[in-house]
């Protein structure tokens, strides 16, 4: 397929968004919204597959073919050229497969999930727009277009999180997501400005080429990675800008699956992988990324241990897995990061969608403490989620196992081989997190699906609570939880297959696609060459590091699963005993380390006070000033008003006095 077809990938969904918008307005066309959206994303996926043959994978050591397709001229101001041109190289293909592939599957699921909702067409408009922005982001040739996509996904995230706009919590969550993202985007924008100022161009190829040749980085060069990093941390929910992601679960489950698991939150990882030579301008940048990634992974995993809401657990799990990806990037293992991105998209989307099925079956109930033993009622969902949980926990030979192991092994190699004990510590942190991941994931699964079958349904109907007296709808939905339709389960089966097989099948593919995609400095090439080989000089416990890490991760995963099985299936009261013995820890974790409250005290409230102060100043002084100016003519009028009495003689007197004055003046002058 000719590469020019790549222009269809972002613009088909854009067209679909416009058409779905029309469907929103015209009542009768509502049913068309879902197929339009699904077909546009599927079209994008097929085009991606078609052009992937043209874009050859890299050989060892040399860069892969990079093709630039110019769609149309967009910004051309003097030296600043930022056009709608797309860079197609192997990394782009991988990202596009993730975005369009997972997008199609989620859209198919959503067609069933959102059926009956009043905002059906609005939902698919948002999803189509999102796919447009996301594909623009991953295909962008220059930083300005990437920023356009970046902001676009943020906008669509806001629109879709706030989909149930009549729910105040959803609206607040949407605002929070957008604002926190904005803080990161500010850093990103400043980074782009600085890049333009130091390199004179925003075209990615030029920037990367120039960055690779910088011998002595100046202060400006060293600031750029940190500014860009801020943007990545905001979009990909790392410390300290992760607080929006758990709240973003207010959106419908397909939104959580697509945007907050598979695609949007990985934009930060993609950006760093793409701009790796720029990040190497400062010696502290990549270690910072690695540290933040590892710490976030551990932090979020601890919080997930004590969360009781299904989707919150998965949200913190997403934050944690994104931490892994950043750790991978930080140790220059872009292959590991992208591989984990790829596998994570599959199993996390699967997990969110199955959680959505559970939620749908129980009319909005998400509290783990009130659900148990659903295996008998929803067997298919049960085993699909089981596969997803295996992959997330890193059970041997699932996709998650391979990708997580790649990252941890690389980190350990850098730590042991390069005499940098920091990385050894980070690898250990990663292993602890893996243990916790397996534990909390299976805590959820064992609680929800195994054990005695008891459940308590909530009373939500398409996102909104149903008033108790509305008898009809209540009766319709308070029924036995049942399995979802085959139309909704089919994409889940595909995702489950991906979660199992993407590791074995995908490792080679991704390895071939990634290292050459990043033309860069000598360090990347050298490390890439090193990482491509699976033996290393360093050893761990006497074995090859990679093999050793595989063994350790497998053991860790099985121990985690076993512990979860004991505490949450076989002997549930034991779990409650442990919780009762350490109430302070439980409270701290259940309340997310009170981070939201801390932010509220430290940042939100002062800002709000300043805002209200400005508002008061504006009302009093500026509006007051303007009102005063408006009042002056009235004042003058009021002052002169008593002169008009309406009595003829008063006017006559006025005339007489006036004449007298004039005569006096004339006589005095002459």
């Amino acid at each position, binding site marked *: 397929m000719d590469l020019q077809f790549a222009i269809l990938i972002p613009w088909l969904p854009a067209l679909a968004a416009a058409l779905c918008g029309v469907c929103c307005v015209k009542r009768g066309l509502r049913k068309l919204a879902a197929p339009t959206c699904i077909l546009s994303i599927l079209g994008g996926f097929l085009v991606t597959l078609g052009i992937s043959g043209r874009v050859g994978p890299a050989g060892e050591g040399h860069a892969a073919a990079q093709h630039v397709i110019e769609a149309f001229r967009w910004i051309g101001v003097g030296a600043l050229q930022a056009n709608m041109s797309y860079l197609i190289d192997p990394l782009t293909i991988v990202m596009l497969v993730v975005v369009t592939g997972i997008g199609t599957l989620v859209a198919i699921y959503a067609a069933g999930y959102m059926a009956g909702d009043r905002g059906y067409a609005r939902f698919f408009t948002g999803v189509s727009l999102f796919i447009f922005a996301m594909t623009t982001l991953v295909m962008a040739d220059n930083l300005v277009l990437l920023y356009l996509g970046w902001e676009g996904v943020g906008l669509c995230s806001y629109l879709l999180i706030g989909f149930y706009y009549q729910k105040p919590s959803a609206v607040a969550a949407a605002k929070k997501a957008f604002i926190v993202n904005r803080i990161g985007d500010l850093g990103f924008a400043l980074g782009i400005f600085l890049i333009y100022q130091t390199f004179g161009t925003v075209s990615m190829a030029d920037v990367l080429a120039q960055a690779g040749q910088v011998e002595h980085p100046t202060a400006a060069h060293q600031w750029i990675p940190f500014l860009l990093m801020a943007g990545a941390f905001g979009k990909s929910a790392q410390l300290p800008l992760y607080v929006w992601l758990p709240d973003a679960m207010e959106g419908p489950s397909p939104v959580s699956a697509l945007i907050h698991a598979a695609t949007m939150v990985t934009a930060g990882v993609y950006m760093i992988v793409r701009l790796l030579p720029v990040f190497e301008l400062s010696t502290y940048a990549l270690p910072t990324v690695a540290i933040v990634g590892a710490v976030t992974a551990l932090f979020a995993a601890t919080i997930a241990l004590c969360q009781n809401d299904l989707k919150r657990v998965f949200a913190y799990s997403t934050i944690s897995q994104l931490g892994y990806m950043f750790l991978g990037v930080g140790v220059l293992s872009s292959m590991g990061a992208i591989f984990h991105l790829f596998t994570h998209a599959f199993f996390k989307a699967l997990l969110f969608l199955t959680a959505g099925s559970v939620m749908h079956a129980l009319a909005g109930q998400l509290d783990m403490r009130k659900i148990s033993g659903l295996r008998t009622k929803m067997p298919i969902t049960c085993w699909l989620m089981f596969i997803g949980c295996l992959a997330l926990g890193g059970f041997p030979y699932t996709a998650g196992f391979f990708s997580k192991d790649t990252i941890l092994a690389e980190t350990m190699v850098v730590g042991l081989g390069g005499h940098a004990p920091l990385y050894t510590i980070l690898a250990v942190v990663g292993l602890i997190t893996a243990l916790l991941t397996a534990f909390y994931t299976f805590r959820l699964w064992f609680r929800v699906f195994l054990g005695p079958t008891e459940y308590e349904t909530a009373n939500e109907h398409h996102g909104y609570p149903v008033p108790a007296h509305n008898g009809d709808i209540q009766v319709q939905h308070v029924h036995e939880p049942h399995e979802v339709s085959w139309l909704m389960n089919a994409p889940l089966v595909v995702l489950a297959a991906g979660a199992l097989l993407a590791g074995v099948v995908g490792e080679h593919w991704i390895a071939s696609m990634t290292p050459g995609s990043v033309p860069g400095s000598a360090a990347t090439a050298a490390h890439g060459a090193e990482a491509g080989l699976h033996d290393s000089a360093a050893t761990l416990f006497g074995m090859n590091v990679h093999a050793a890490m595989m063994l350790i991760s497998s053991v860790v995963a099985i121990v985690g699963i076993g512990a979860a099985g004991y505490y949450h299936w076989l002997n549930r009261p034991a779990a409650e005993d442990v919780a009762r013995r350490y109430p302070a820890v439980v409270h701290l974790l259940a309340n997310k380390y009170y981070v939201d409250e801390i932010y509220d005290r430290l940042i939100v409230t002062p800002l709000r006070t300043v805002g209200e102060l400005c508002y008061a100043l504006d009302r009093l002084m500026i509006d007051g000033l303007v009102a005063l100016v408006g009042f002056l003519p009235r004042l003058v009028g009021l002052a002169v*008003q008593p002169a*008009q*009495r*309406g*009595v*003829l*003689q008063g006017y*006559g*007197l006025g005339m*007489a006095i006036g004449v007298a004055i004039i005569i006096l003046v004339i006589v005095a002058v002459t």
Partner: protein
Amino acid sequence: MNSSADSLILGHFLLTSSVLFVLGLVGFLMRRNLIIMFLCTELMFQGVVLALVAFARFHHNDTGQTFVIFVLTIAAAEAALALALVMLLYRRKPTLDTSAWSQMKG
């Protein structure tokens, strides 16, 4: 004839004329009865007329006297109009007091 006229002093005539005028003015401004106010305006006219005639005599010029004829004509016409207005106003409110007509106040 002229010789006897030399014993007339212009100033006396002007003084009389101004006294008449001021009396008329003050009366106009002070009185409240519409018809009396009108009579005062007539008085103001007479003062002016006297001044005109005096100046005409002083300058041995008949222009002043001609002007006086005009003024008297216009005074007559104005008298007709004014009294017609008074009649109409009286029909509205059965009073000749000007303070009854202060609706344009403020």
